[in-house]
């Protein structure tokens, strides 16, 4: 979010999610408030409905609701509520134990487990184990950055790309196919496979783009339909001769050649080159949006298509090119997934990265660096969820619930504002992200 500032497109011209500047940047543009100390200003804004406060409170709210779900779904804890009036401490203690254990595991699995540090320090463990949670977080975050950027970029151009899932699936197909079909030397092979994923996604993004430009078909409908088409195509393709893993009867493809896999730290540390590429892609999208001519055009079209047309921008061309770019990004996300961690096609190879990308973009307020941070948060939730599942026995699905709830609150800042009685932020526009139908 910070790098968005200096390039400086006028904030008010931006269409899309509320463009509240972060708290820390507040004092700068407000000259009259100079006599206030920074601290009082900070405290004043802390409880206002600005982006950071709303985001933090959304996460808190989501985790509260998640805690209720954990308690309600635990028969042992629930039974202590049966005699709540007689011994309330029992119920409260049991609830606190189950919830705090779950969330502690979430943290340990996502960021750091203090036990591994002591183990590494006294020689019973390795330092690799200390970095394992971070590695997992970054591994899960990498594809989400790409799909998130895909959705965010399309948003800025006024298009709602729900097709990230389908584009990512096609990206996995083409990247994996290039990975096990082309006999190429190490570095070239990886680049070729990544490019193949990019092109596959671009192709799948081209279809809704050209249909939108030529016929006005709404991209939401077309991309939803293309998602399932891509999934069915993948399901068919895996079972074909030459693609299916020889000697297997279930749906799994050949393994991607070692020369086309994204290099990782090896061993249990699965974090790979994908996250580096993701950061580069974020910088690239930020540059595209703020510095490139095409970025200006797409923002103009997103803000007001009629005005952009009058100003001489070809709306049709922008829509097509924008969807191709968005598709390419999502395709790269799929490629990262299959070349970085999965290494072979399965019907679920792309998981839910396309739809999660949508949530990530919304959480990141459709800004490149915001999307990167949101993707890392989602990756952390996912990595922590794995540990929570195996240690506390809390289903991984809780993470899906948390993610969805966070984004619901983010999308309805007015709701959060009402719940917490927040002051209206001076420059924040609360309200619909981009309310328009088909």
């Amino acid at each position, binding site marked *: 979010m910070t790098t968005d500032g200096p390039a400086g497109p006028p904030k008010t011209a931006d269409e899309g999610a509320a463009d509240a500047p972060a708290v820390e940047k507040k004092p700068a543009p407000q000259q009259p408030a100079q006599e206030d100390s920074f601290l009082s200003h900070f405290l004043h804004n802390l409880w206002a409905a600005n982006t950071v406060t709303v985001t933090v409170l959304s996460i808190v709210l989501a985790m509260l609701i998640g805690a209720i*779900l954990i308690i309600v*779904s635990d028969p042992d804890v629930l039974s202590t509520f049966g005699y709540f009036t007689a011994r309330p401490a029992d119920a409260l203690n049991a609830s606190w134990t189950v919830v705090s254990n779950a969330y502690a595991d979430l943290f340990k699995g996502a960021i750091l487990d203090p036990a591994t540090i002591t183990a590494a320090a006294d020689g019973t463990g390795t330092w690799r184990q200390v970095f394992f949670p971070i590695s997992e977080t970054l591994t899960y975050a990498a594809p989400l950055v790409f799909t998130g950027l895909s959705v965010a970029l399309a948003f800025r151009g*006024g298009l*709602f790309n*729900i097709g990230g899932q389908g584009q990512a699936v096609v990206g996995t197909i083409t990247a994996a196919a290039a990975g096990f079909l082309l006999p190429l030397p190490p570095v070239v092979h990886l680049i070729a496979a990544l490019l193949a994923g990019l092109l596959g996604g671009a192709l799948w993004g081209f*279809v809704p783009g050209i*249909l*939108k*430009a*030529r*016929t*006005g*078909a*709404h991209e*939401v*409908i*077309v991309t*939803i*339909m*293309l*998602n*399932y*088409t891509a*999934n*069915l*195509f993948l*399901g*068919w393709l895996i079972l074909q001769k030459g693609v299916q893993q020889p000697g297997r009867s279930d749906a799994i493809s050949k393994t991607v050649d070692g020369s086309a896999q994204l290099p990782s730290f090896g061993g249990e540390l699965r974090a790979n080159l994908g996250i580096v590429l993701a950061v580069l892609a974020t910088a690239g999208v930020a540059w595209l949006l703020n510095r490139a001519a095409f970025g200006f055009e797409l923002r103009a079209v997103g803000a007001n*298509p*009629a005005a952009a*047309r009058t100003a001489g921008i070809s*709306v*049709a061309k922008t*829509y097509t090119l924008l969807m191709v770019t968005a598709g390419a990004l999502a395709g790269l996300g799929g490629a990262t997934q299959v070349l970085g961690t999965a290494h072979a096609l399965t019907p679920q190879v792309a998981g839910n990265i396309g*739809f999660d990308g*949508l*949530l990530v973009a*919304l959480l990141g307020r459709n800004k490149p660096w915001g999307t990167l941070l949101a993707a890392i948060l989602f990756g952390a939730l996912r990595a922590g969820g794995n540990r929570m599942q195996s240690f506390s026995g*809390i*289903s991984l*699905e809780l993470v*899906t*619930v*948390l*993610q*969805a709830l966070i*984004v*619901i609150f983010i*999308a*309805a800042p*007015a*709701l959060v504002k009402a719940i917490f009685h927040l002051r209206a932020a001076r420059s924040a526009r609360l*309200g*619909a*992200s*981009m*309310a*328009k*139908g*088909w």
Partner: protein
Amino acid sequence: MSTATAEKLTGAAAPARFWDRQRRLGVGVLAIGLVAAVLFGVLAPSQDARFTLSEDAEGAALTINGQLGAILFGVLALAAGAVLFAGLARRFQTGVLSLGILAFVLSFLCWQVAGKFLPLVDTASGTLELAVPLILGALAGVLGERSGVVNVAIEGQFLMGAFGAALVGTMATSVWAGVLSAAVGGVLIAGILAVLAIRYLVDQVVVGIVLNLLALGVTGFLYERLMQPDAPAYNQPPKMPEWRIPGLADIPVVGPVLFDTNALVWLALLLVVGIHFGLTRTRWGLRTRAVGEHPTAADTVGVRVRGLRYLNVLAGGVIAGAGGAYFTLVATGSFNKNMTSGAGFIALAALIFGRWTPFGALGAALFFGFAQKLATYLSAVGSPVPSQFLNMLPYLATIVAVAGLVGRVRAPAADGQPYIKS
């Protein structure tokens, strides 16, 4: 943004020209007719194709030589295409188009069934069974979208409905308690959608997509915590009984399909008629359509825009929830994680393909149900046509429809736009 403005912006204005809709349709039908007559005709073996009037190979049957049938129906499709292209049937355009597509499907069937048999009763009842949740889901969409609230959360409503039906149905050992709680599950999702979309003005497509994920997460979470460890206590709902209407059920083909079945099938069909009647003939329907097309005008004459939208979206939640009950109480008999697997989006496709009307949705749902049933039949008899491609049909057909390649579909004008009273 409505499709009309997008068209204007992208400069696709259409003056009267040679390639009008009729001619383009004609060319399309001619092309599929050619494929049918030549490709299917060549590929079809010259053996008898039997269409039996029962649930298996027994009993009376309609029989035709596969190759002859494929060519014959292909030629019929060609003829329909030629009539359309020549502009001879301006008044019966829909009829001739349907005839062309039907002939194409029959030609395809003759090719596939040649040397085998296709039980018509089984196919028809299977089609209807697959279509019932689609009909209910699409009707929920009709209610919401005709009043201006986009509902892409049908999938989530299905899941919550299916889950609620399994959970409460098992705990109360009653099918009807299951159906009731399925409706409650659907209303829960619809309620969140309504509040966020109408009260908090959040983008409706965004809310819908996020609600789908929320429903997926909540049902998956509770499934793993409650149902998986103790299925007999939480996940063995009684199945919905099949009722047979004496007399009517003895009519060949139609009887067993329509009159020896469960209550949800009848509910779906009755709702199609009811909602069609309601939308076109009642005060509620007129107001709903007004609110969906021009809320400001409706408000000016005293219609409570937001109230009506709440009512319709919640009613849609009841219907979609009941559709979800179909998955657990009729189709499989237990809940499973993500068991609807995209059916909600096929229902959405049926809604759009059916042009936001109840009978259109019914037709589209039946068509999609038939495609799915045919896909399972073909993979069962080992056809060279992959079932996945038939399963793609609903999605591809919808893309063709919204792109206006075969007559454009148009959404209600205010669909998806929150109403802010000024």
